[in-house]
Every structure is written in structure tokens, then in C-alpha cells.
């Protein structure tokens, strides 16, 4: 129905001689929750901050809500909410003062008390920011990004450092954004976060996208190999990775039937998103040693 919220085409960014982003393409539809998943140093923050207008790109095309963020148009900042990977705050301001002040900077803000509640900071509304815990300060970051009622929200590692309960609560908040029809671009190095929240995920490493798609699809699609394991007649655990397990399973079971025995501990596993992630982001050296399995008896 409308153009994508974000379009990135052949994006490059170098810091001096270091190529942090080396040709990235993706687009985020309106109303979509899109995740950039990758280890530290992958180039997630660099990419997001180019889209937010904080950093200049070396090369490539980007468009955010139809604008070039590099030109820092004022209309764009009104429609976008930003949670930086690390953002500071006035030391002596209280939570409520901060949210109320931020609300004044936007033309159509959300209700201040409602936003404080959405961020789970009702009990801390009168608390000075510098006495908040790390997790609470992060939730304030989220509140400040939401109070202007933006249509697009950038979240750079929104839950890093959270305990599990706080993490679940933040996920609820982010899901509520999707329910409101907001577009979300988030970065994370937590797989479960990407799997739980994102409509689509791009796995990024060393400035390149290694795989992109729905979390479920990445699990089955990107890694085509299926892992079959069983215990052989000598009682040793065997493991094999194959494209299509049909023939191998037939071979194992018919041999066992012929002997009048059974195949013990037979498992056939499709890789999860986690396996794909580990495989894709492992160093080349590591993946060589992880190669196939002993010959069978």
C-alpha cells in the first residue's frame, strides 16, 4: 500500500581504513519489526546511526520514511524515536520531568503518565535519573523514544544488561508498538530476542548480511543440512549431516531390521535459528574443524 519505511541499498561505511559496513541491502516495510542480529563489532550500530542521521555513509543509498537521513530533515526527527546504544541524561532530572520535557519537543506527544506506565516506571516517576538502575535507565530511554508518538522507532540493543523479567517486560512493550502499527528497527546480539520479536531478521557479521528472512525460515531455509545421529552396533554415538535424510534413515533402519535389532537413539534434527546463527557467524577456521563425521562401521 505504501513505500517501505526504510530502504538501504549497497550501504558502505569506512572509518579510516577500517571497513565497518561493506555493502548492505535491506528494506523494512511499514508496520514491520525488523531485527539486525549479529555479534559485537558486526556493524549494527554503524548502520542504525547512519539511518538515524548521526553518521555519514561512505557510499550507497538510504531512505527513511522517504527522506535522506544524512540531510537531517526536521520533518523526519518529529516522526522517528531513537534509543541509542548508550545515551546520557541530565543528572538531576526526575523520570517524570524527563518524559514531560521530551513530550514538549514533539507536536503530538503521547500522554506522559501513560508512557511512564508503558515503560514500567510508575514507581520511579519521582526518582532522579542518576539513581536509577541500569535496567530502569534503559526503560527511561525507551519512554523518551516513545513519548513523541513516532511512527518509526530505532532500538539499538534495547535490552542489553536486563534481567530476564525486565527483558520479558521490554518485549511486551515492543510488541505493543507493533500492535499500534509502528515500524521498529532493532539491533540485538540475543538470538531469542530476534526470534521472539522480529517479523524478519538480517544476520550481520563483519559488515555484511549473511542471511535475511523470517526467523522460522532462517531456521529451515538458510542451513539446508539436517543432522542425523544414532548409536551403532558397537554402542558408539554416530552423527552425520546430510541434505536429505531419507536415504540414510532408510539404510539405517533396514540394516537394523535385517539384523532383527533396532536403531537406538535415532534423531533427525533440523537446525534452529541458533544453529544457523552460530554456523554463519563462526570464524572460517572453526567451521572447517566442524566438518563431517566418522565413517560408519
Amino acid at each position, binding site marked *: 500500500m505504501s513505500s517501505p519505511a526504510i530502504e538501504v541499498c549497497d550501504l558502505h561505511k569506512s572509518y579510516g581504513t577500517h571497513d565497518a559496513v561493506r555493502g548492505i541491502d535491506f528494506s523494512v516495510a511499514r508496520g514491520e519489526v525488523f531485527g539486525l542480529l549479529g555479534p559485537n563489532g558486526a556493524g549494527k550500530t554503524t548502520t542504525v546511526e547512519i539511518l*538515524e*542521521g*548521526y553518521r555519514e555513509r561512505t557510499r550507497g543509498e538510504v531512505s527513511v520514511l522517504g527522506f535522506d537521513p544524512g540531510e537531517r530533515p*526536521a520533518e523526519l*526527527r*518529529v516522526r*522517528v524515536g*531513537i534509543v*541509542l546504544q*548508550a*545515551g*546520557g*541524561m*541530565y*543528572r*538531576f*532530572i526526575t523520570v517524570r*520531568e524527563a518524559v514531560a*520535557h*521530551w513530550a*514538549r*519537543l*514533539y*507536536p503530538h506527544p503521547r500522554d506522559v503518565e501513560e508512557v511512564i506506565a508503558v515503560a514500567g516506571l510508575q514507581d520511579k516517576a519521582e526518582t532522579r535519573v542518576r539513581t536509577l538502575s541500569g535496567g530502569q535507565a534503559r526503560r527511561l530511554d525507551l519512554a*523518551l523514544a516513545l513519548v*513523541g508518538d513516532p511512527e518509526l522507532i530505532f532500538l539499538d540493543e534495547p535490552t542489553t544488561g536486563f534481567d530476564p523479567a525486565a527483558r520479558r517486560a521490554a518485549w511486551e512493550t515492543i510488541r505493543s508498538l507493533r500492535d499500534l502499527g509502528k515500524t521498529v528497527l532493532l539491533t540485538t546480539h540475543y538470538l531469542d530476542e530476534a526470534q521472539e520479536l522480529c517479523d524478519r531478521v538480517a544476520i550481520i557479521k563483519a559488515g555484511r548480511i549473511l542471511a535475511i528472512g523470517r526467523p522460522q525460515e532462517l531456521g529451515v531455509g538458510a542451513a539446508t543440512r539436517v543432522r542425523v545421529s544414532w548409536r551403532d552396533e558397537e554402542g558408539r554415538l554416530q552423527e552425520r549431516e546430510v541434505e536429505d535424510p531419507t536415504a540414510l534413515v532408510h539404510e539405517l533402519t533396514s540394516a537394523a531390521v535385517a539384523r532383527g535389532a533396532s536403531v537406538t537413539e535415532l534423531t533427525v534434527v533440523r537446525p534452529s535459528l541458533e544453529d544457523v546463527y552460530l554456523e554463519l557467524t563462526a570464524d572460517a577456521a572453526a567451521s572447517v574443524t566442524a566438518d563431517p563425521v566418522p565413517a560408519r562401521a
Partner: protein
Amino acid sequence: MPSTAVLAWHQYRLERRMFWRNPSAAFFNFVLPLLFLFLIGAIVSGDQDQLDVIVPGIAGMSVLSTTFSALAMNLTFLREQGVLKRMRGTPLPSGAYLSALAANAVTNAAIQVVIVVVAGRVFFGTGWPEDYLELVVFVAAGVACLAALGVAYSHLIPNFDSAPAFVNVVFLPVIFVSGVFFDAENAPAFLRDIGRALPLTHVIDGLSGALVTGASLADNAGSLGVIALWGIGGAVLAVRGFSWEARRG
């Protein structure tokens, strides 16, 4: 959309509130100059010639500390903490934000000059100002010049921990050579020359004319010129070197 002026006003109000919440900033900004004034006033007690030097001198020092020192420290803090970066991601226009920061410093300068002038009248026999226009002109020129220099200087400060040292290494020598505590005419020639090359001496000359000697704006036009030169240089450097984010590593 709230207008730029309205946004700047909101931001100014916030800066004022935050200023008063920081007890050490409030102390250093208001109590320290008065402490200097009373201590030195006690030492030279009764010597009206000396008092006539010290009152405009401390007024000038107040302008220096509320603008140059305070802005250099404050900007270093805001930059290092990432507050500048966060503000840059909101619809608050950069100009509105920086104006609010500057207006906050200017307010402190104005409050302090008033305190020093009143203390001079009530306790130190300097009387009410001879020339209010001249007073306003020199406070305004001094504030603009020293604020620009403070912003420019903040670019040299690598992190907040070293900010007090960076600021004081300028602040302390400058107040001594600029004749805050004694008549610069009695200083050794080379110190006097250094002092005359710096803007604070000329701010104090103007304040002295306005508060004590009655030397007119026309008499002090040369001083205004020196302040303007420093101010323009400071403004260019302040804008050129401005960075919204801390340097890495």
C-alpha cells in the same frame, strides 16, 4: 509544530531547573565570588582605592567563571555523557538547544554582576554604577566573548575528569594577570602586556569605568574592540570544532 523560540524557552527553563538542583554548581557560581570579595575586602579594609579595583575586578571574574568556565565544563559533561547526542535525535533544533545552554550561562553572569554591584554599594563604598548603559554594554560584550571562548575551549578538553584542570589552568592565571585583585598598572611590564592582550582585562576596564571611575563608553571603545576580536575568533572556533559526540577511545 512548536516554534523554535518556544522550544528554546522550554529548554532554557529545564537548564535553569537543573542548574539549581546541582548544589556544587550553585555554590561555586554564587558563593565563591562573594567569598573572594569579602576576604579581599577585609584584607584591604578601609583602602577605598583598592576596593575600587576589586569590585569591578570580581565582577569581571564572575563573568569569566559563569560563562567561560561553566560552559567549558558543562559542554564537556553533556558531550561525554551523551546528552548532546540524545538531544540531537529530537526535534529540538540545534540552534535552540545551544541558545538555551548559552542563555543559562548568561543568566548566571547577570545574577552575579548584580550581586557584586549591590555588595559593592552596601559594603565597600563603591556607590551605585556611574553609567548603567556602559555596564550593560560591557557585561553583554564580555558574556558573548567569554561564552564563545568557553565553547571553543571545550573542544580541547578530552574528558570530564580532566575538565576542572583544563579550566583552572586558564582561569587562575587569567584572573591574576587581568587585574582582578590588584591594579594591573602596578604589575611587572611583561605581565601587564599579557593581561592587556587578553579580553578579561578589557571587560574589567569597562566595568571599572561604569562602576567607579566614570570613564565613558567612548573612552573604553578600544577595549570593546579587543573584546570583539576575541569574541569573533572564539565564535569561529566554537562553531568549527563543535562536536555532538565524544571522541572515541
